């Protein structure tokens, strides 16, 4: 539906670490309800791109439009309030906090709406029954997969209109990767727009509708995910066969 206004529109976005350019002139467009994957190798700039979108890293050029607002220079808390929530690389759960408290922190913007928070928390627990059994357990004692579920749950409590997922499969056993990706698909089918960044290109493109290939900070290619999966160059570079 090209006529529909995109939820997220990124135009000519660049971002630097000191003098080093990490993202160069990136263009990105996500329609409401889409599941979009960004694939690329180590150091291609995937994490920097997400951090620039969520205001955690300053953009040096270009602009980011979200739901009709130019959010390029907004501070992170305003961007979260607008509806972009991130599940960070390495999960970053608060280790000395219980599972429950981690989730409550995710609902920081909604903290005055206790009923909503409680209902949403229960929804997360039904999405991840493993977490429900461990409500009072400290997040630091969870396994990697459980921490990933917690990080996703925590981001969902931020009431996202766009969920950014940074390498959710990192360091997880294949079975758990499957479980996490199953949940991502389920969330998307419930209407959450998702931008998924992955090194595990095959798994990401298998569930995504569209994909972008990021190479040394530039968008090298964009196409429907099935097309990328079939593309020879992409296969050789990222799928290893």
């Amino acid at each position, binding site marked *: 539906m090209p006529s529909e206004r995109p939820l997220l529109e990124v135009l000519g976005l660049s971002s630097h670490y000191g003098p080093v350019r990490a993202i160069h002139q990136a263009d990105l467009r996500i329609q409401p309800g889409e599941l979009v994957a960004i694939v690329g190798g180590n150091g291609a700039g995937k994490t920097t791109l997400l951090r620039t979108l969520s205001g955690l890293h300053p953009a040096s050029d270009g602009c980011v439009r979200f739901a009709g607002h130019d959010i390029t220079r907004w501070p992170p808390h305003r961007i979260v309030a607008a509806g972009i929530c991130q599940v960070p690389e390495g999960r970053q759960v608060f280790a000395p*906090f219980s599972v429950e408290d981690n989730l409550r*922190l995710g609902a920081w913007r909604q903290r005055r709406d206790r009923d909503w928070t409680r209902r949403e928390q229960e929804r997360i627990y039904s999405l991840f029954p493993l977490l429900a059994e461990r409500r009072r357990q400290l997040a630091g004692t969870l396994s990697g997969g459980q921490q990933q579920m917690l990080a996703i749950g925590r981001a969902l409590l931020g009431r996202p209109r766009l969920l950014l997922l940074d390498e959710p499969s990192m360091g997880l056993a294949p079975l758990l990767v499957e479980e996490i990706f199953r949940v991502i698909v389920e969330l998307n089918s419930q209407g959450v727009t998702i931008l998924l960044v992955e090194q595990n290109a095959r798994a990401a493109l298998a569930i995504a509708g569209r994909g972008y290939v990021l190479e040394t900070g530039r968008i090298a290619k964009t196409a429907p995910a099935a097309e990328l999966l079939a593309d020879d160059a992409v296969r050789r570079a990222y799928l290893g066969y």
Partner: protein
Amino acid sequence: MRLAGLYACAAVAAALPILFPDNYFVTVVGISAGIRVILAVGLNLLMGYAGQISLGHAAFFGMGAYASAILTTRHAWPALLAMAAGLAVVGASAWLLARPILRLRGHYLAMATLGFGIIVHVVMVQATRWTGGPDGLAGIPPLNLLGWSVDTDLRWYGVVMAATLLAVWLSLNLADSQVGRALRAVHGSEFAARMLGIDTGRAKTRIFVVSALFAAFAGSLFAHQQGFVSPDSFNLIVSVELVTMVVLGGMASTFGAACGAIALTLLHEGLVVFEDYEMLIHGALLMAVMIFLPQGLFVGLSQATRRLWRAARRGG
């Protein structure tokens, strides 16, 4: 249940003067311990929960004390009004200071707050026309609560204990609130906290102001109780002692900070007999605590007792 510890403290505070009337340690030392507990609990909100350091907290303590001293002696303001004015001045200066200063981290924050403490101390010494200079200000009237004059040690003990319990209660509530959790998140990972939409700059600014207000409140009580203030009570050593209390208490626990404050006050009293060696023994004890009880006195000792208790049960 959360407040059980508070009720226990209130019971002990009330029982002590009944069990030991006219005891120097209960009244005089108790008052000074209470004021220090307010200071330590306030600083712990900033250090223990939010993970920010302040090496200039004596400045806020001093500003609260001097505001009360100057307004009551020179301008004949009623004590409570002077206290409120002091709190307003300290709150406003802490807020103005927080914005630029809390952008700094670690050592830089320590240096910046240290600098602030030194500047305030210099003003106390040099601005002789207002502050009386190095000689300080004398003749501060006792606190007057709606006609009830706080003019005996026992009355002071009651007032300071009530104020201390209030401070502890506020701190416990704050720590257990959504705001307290956000502060601990900032402490854990400021980056992750920002990612969740917590305005970390604002959270840190607010807790810095609250922490300074605790100190100013303690300062005002201190000024009225002593009847005299001088710059010596608010110098750098005092700031360092306050940090020591919080660290001794184990950080991130209200009761820990309170225990640290009481322990250090008692240590002072106990070491007075050693005169010149006081600082030496003081330092050695601190080092011992840091080596053997790195989580602080409160947490460290409670864990040690639990271990002993278990060992004893197994042995018996």
